[in-house]
């Protein structure tokens, strides 16, 4: 279970508070969506969950399976099952996708006391999962994300997610830049990972993704905290009314 308690986050180098008392719980087996206007702090929440530098937690805590993770390095959190599909995935020149996937998969397996994948095992699994995500195997021989289209980057993120078998999946605007076919492929990939052992937090600005990845709960983030929580119908309501109710001055 993911428990975010009264989380206050400011930028490290600036006197700017972004999250101001955010509280949220995602039990295993559930998919929660976070929706909110641009600039409301959705990506900040995702980054803070993953442990990116540059943010300061001034109050509150994040518990994953009952254990506080806010002092942990990003790789330690990854070993504990935290995965972030980035809104803007980084390019890694010179490192082939396959090498990256294998290094990452074996790094987390090692830290989870699992045996490393042999080359044939690894290739078999990658081929299978890549095919399901409509990823051309040849693409994996190219350097990670270098020259990838927006859609290719997002599909590659989901492939990484599938390979690393995380227990907490955070997807930051995975739908942005996808056409309707790609959206379907990516959603199928995510849905295939839904399981009673996994918690998922799907961050999106638009309702359309949630037609494909149907959430158990929808939360509206604005002014640094969760303003409303509802079922999947809340997303539809936002689709018609927009974020106008939430973009005014803080309540």
């Amino acid at each position: 279970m993911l428990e975010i308690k009264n989380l206050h986050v400011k930028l490290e180098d600036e006197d700017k508070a972004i999250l101001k008392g955010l509280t949220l719980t995602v039990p295993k087996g559930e998919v929660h969506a976070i929706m909110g206007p641009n600039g409301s702090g959705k990506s900040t929440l995702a980054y803070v969950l993953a442990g990116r530098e540059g943010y300061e937690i001034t109050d509150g805590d994040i518990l994953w399976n009952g254990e506080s993770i806010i002092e942990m390095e990003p790789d330690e959190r990854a070993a504990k099952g935290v995965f972030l599909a980035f809104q803007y995935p980084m390019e890694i020149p010179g490192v082939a996708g396959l090498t990256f996937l294998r290094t990452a998969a074996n790094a987390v397996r090692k830290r989870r006391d699992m045996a490393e994948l042999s080359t044939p095992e690894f290739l078999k699994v990658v081929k299978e999962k890549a095919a399901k995500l409509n990823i051309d195997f040849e693409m994996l021989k190219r350097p990670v994300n270098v020259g990838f289209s927006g859609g290719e980057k997002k599909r590659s993120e989901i492939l990484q997610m599938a390979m690393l078998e995380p227990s907490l999946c955070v997807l930051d605007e995975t739908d942005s830049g996808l056409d309707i076919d790609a959206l379907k492929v990516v959603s199928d990939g995510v849905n295939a990972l839904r399981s009673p052992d996994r918690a998922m937090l799907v961050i999106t600005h638009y309702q359309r993704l949630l037609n494909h990845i149907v959430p158990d709960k929808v939360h509206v983030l604005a002014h640094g905290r969760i303003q409303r929580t509802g079922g999947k119908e809340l997303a539809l309501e936002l689709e018609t009314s927009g974020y106008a109710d939430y973009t005014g001055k803080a309540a």
Partner: protein
Amino acid sequence: MPAVQETVEQVKKIDVDQYKYGFETDIEMVKAPKGLNEDIVRFISEKKGEPAWMLDWRLDAYRRWRAMTEPTWAKVSYPKIDFEDLYYYAAPKSTEGPKSLDEVDPELLRMYERLGVPLQEQEILAGVKSDKPRVAVDAVLDSVSVVTTFKEELAKAGVIFCSISEALREHPELVKKYLGSVVPQSDNYYAALNSAVFSDGSFVYVPEGVRCPMELSTYFRINERETGQFERTLIIADKGAYVSYLEGCTAPMRDENQLHAAVVELVALDDAEIKYSTVQNWYPGDKNGKGGIYNFVTKRGDCRGRNSKISWTQVETGSAITWKYPSCILRGDNSRGEFYSIAVSNGYQQVDSGTKMIHLGKNTSSRIISKGIAAGFSQNTYRGLVSAHRKATGARNFTACDSLLIGDKCGAHTVPYIEAKNSSAHFEHEATTSKISDDMLFYCQQRGLSEEEAVALVVNGFVRDVLQQLPMEFLAETQKLIGISLEGSVG
């Protein structure tokens, strides 16, 4: 990926003492008095029992050197070197005259063991199984060669592999014919200095049609304080011959800077091929930039014959200052020159390195792949010249210079010069600069890699195509070395 894993493991082990070759060995030495004058040149020549022509050659070089000034065009800065405050000759007392392995001072053997250099003839480089090819080693300590292994076995194939001092005694006609024929005495300031006072180095002659039966390597070690190292290497591959040669270098950690000014000359005759690899790991100085080797080296290969080929591969991780441009003179028609380089700089290291490809013959080709990695406060410059002579019709060159920056306090620079005096020359140049950013590291860490693993992954990806050029025997060691050199470059 096992290689990455290995790099990381190695990095972790050497957490405290990054530079594992930094120890000193207490060996009784014979030295010439400090400073440089004609008497010192005579002293060195006499110590080595050289013929009169060699002394004259040295004195000529010395006089030319006196008339020259230190070059200042490289992008390196350092306090002026006081050439009068150095020792120009230092040799272990026990090593006067050639020795076989069992006569070598046990203290010396222990030192080489600690350095991981195999002097036992039945052994080979650490980590390599015994069914792999063997490596013959010439071990040069300060000013002299202490031992050369596998000499007899090589002699059976007709290959001469010995110290240059021994070659001067045993094969003077060969030395006289080729010494200075690629790098003339007055070629540049440091080459002139080297020509005057060089004390030892390796000599290789591979006769016509012979493929050298094993890897040859020279291991250079500076041990003495305040002593310059000036070695001279001369390699000749006669018609249709092939040789692969590797040089390695280390030095103790010291607060003061030490001078190393070597000259390497390669001559490839018709259809011959020389592959010359360097893993340079001189002491780079401490994290504040104190101490370290000043490395001013002239390396040049002459593709003198038709269809000859010379290939330089270098991995430069050490030295406080590196000034080094292994070059090829493509004189023979259809000859080919290659330069593959990985230059890693960290701390306050300054690297100014690159190559020259001088196309003189017809249908000559050259290829330059340079990878500069700068971390810490270091400066890393690629400087290269590709030129085609008027008569060099059909000359072709491909150059790719890539720089990788780690952190934002270091610098990478590319200075390519191109001179085509011939309209049929076809030169291509590509250059890229990339950076290992915090975001890139975070991305990798989010996928479960530690910070060191992330750096090792990115760096290994960056240098892969050059590493592939190294002889197999040295690949794993070198990969580790690059990892170690970048230790502490992030976080």
